[in-house]
């Protein structure tokens, strides 16, 4: 338990190791710890931002879907109205066409009747002439009796 040179030996060793720690150990480790701390803080911040972005995007998506749904229902409504309109139009057109066809047919029939009447009239005139010839046993001059025949035919 003597005080001797060991005292100074220990002091020299102390200063050497403190110097060593100060130079070679402490700064790089603390710097690395600081760098990692910053990196972690940055990472957390990025994650936070990403979360915010995500929630924002989700909200936007929901809005878009809602809007699209409204639009779609509008389009469906429009289409329904349009189709009704088209059906209505088609019905009207069909009805008009029908009328037109009917009218044309009526005209045709009337013409046909007129024509038949005409031809009948001619035939009756011819028959009457023939009958008169037979009765008179001689020729009838069609030309001289044309006026009478005309009147006869007109009466038919």
């Amino acid at each position, binding site marked *: *338990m*003597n*005080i*001797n*040179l*060991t*005292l*100074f*030996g*220990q*002091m020299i*060793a*102390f*200063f050497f*190791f*403190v110097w*060593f*720690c*100060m130079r*070679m*150990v*402490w*700064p*790089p*480790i*603390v*710097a*690395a*710890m600081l*760098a*990692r701390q910053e*990196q972690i803080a940055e990472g957390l911040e990025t994650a936070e931002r990403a979360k915010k972005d995500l929630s924002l995007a989700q909200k936007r998506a929901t809005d878009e879907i809602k809007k699209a749904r409204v639009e779609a229902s509008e389009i469906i409504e429009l289409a329904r109205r349009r189709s009704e309109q088209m059906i209505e139009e088609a019905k009207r057109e069909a009805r008009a066409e029908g009328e037109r066809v009917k009218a044309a047919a009526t005209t045709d029939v009337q013409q046909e009747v007129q024509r038949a009447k005409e031809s009948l009239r001619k035939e009756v005139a011819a028959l009457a002439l023939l009958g008169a010839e037979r009765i008179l046993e001689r020729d009838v001059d069609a030309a001289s009796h044309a006026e009478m025949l005309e009147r006869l035919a007109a009466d038919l």
Partner: protein
Amino acid sequence: MASGFETTAEDYIAHHLVNATFGRFPEGHERAGEWGFASSGSEAEAMGFMAIHVDSMGWSIGLAIFFMYFFRRVAVSAAENPAAIPTGLRNVVEALIDFIEGMVKSVFKHPDLSYVAPMALTIFVWVFFMNLMDLVPVDLVPYIAQYGLGIEYMKIVPSTDPNITMGLALSVFTLIIFFSIRQKGLGGFLAEISFHPFGKWLLPFNLALEVVGLLAKPVSLGLRLFGNLFSAEMIFILIATMYTGLIIGLLGGLLQFAWAVFHILVVPLQAFIFMVLSVVYLTQAFDEGEAH
């Protein structure tokens, strides 16, 4: 009983309290003036100041190299790859540095930690390892040294050597003086110890008070550590003298275990106290105003 060479408990204890001392043989010795290892406790004592405790020095420096090696390895890997995910050893060292840094920051309020924090780390880990050697069974290493290597004396706990603890304390004291003068200037430092606490008319009285206060710092630092560890080591040695018979030997084993468990508390606590007090003293050295 520990050694065949010793016959009594007193001899055994006395043998355990002698360092491996390398020094200059004193006047009156047959090898007077020569340097060599002391072959007994009284011879070591007679060498006086011109001697060195090879075992204390060796274990102290060896332990420092041991932990500094790991610290340096971590520092190199940290410098190479600062952002790597820390594993194993690096985790341990970083946790330790974090703890020391927090500790120092809570006491030492100056922004520049670059002197005090590494010093605190060195002190804490070094004193911790030196104290930890106390948990090695008292006879294990001395036996190996004695019968394996032919070294007669071997004390493996450096902090039971007052040279080591006072060496640390005086180093801290040197730093206190150095930083006091650097921060306040020589005049400021002298004014601080001359004009406080009673003003300039009681200068000699102030000086006496302050110088005693100043000198008390290293003494209390060094002697506290020495006293705690020396007494603990002494108790381990005393317990070791109980290994004489079966019953009392079992009792001794139980006691040794109990004391070792208790000592687990003492080892880090004393290291921590030494570190915190050093930081506190240096804080006072850095403080400009009246801080004591």
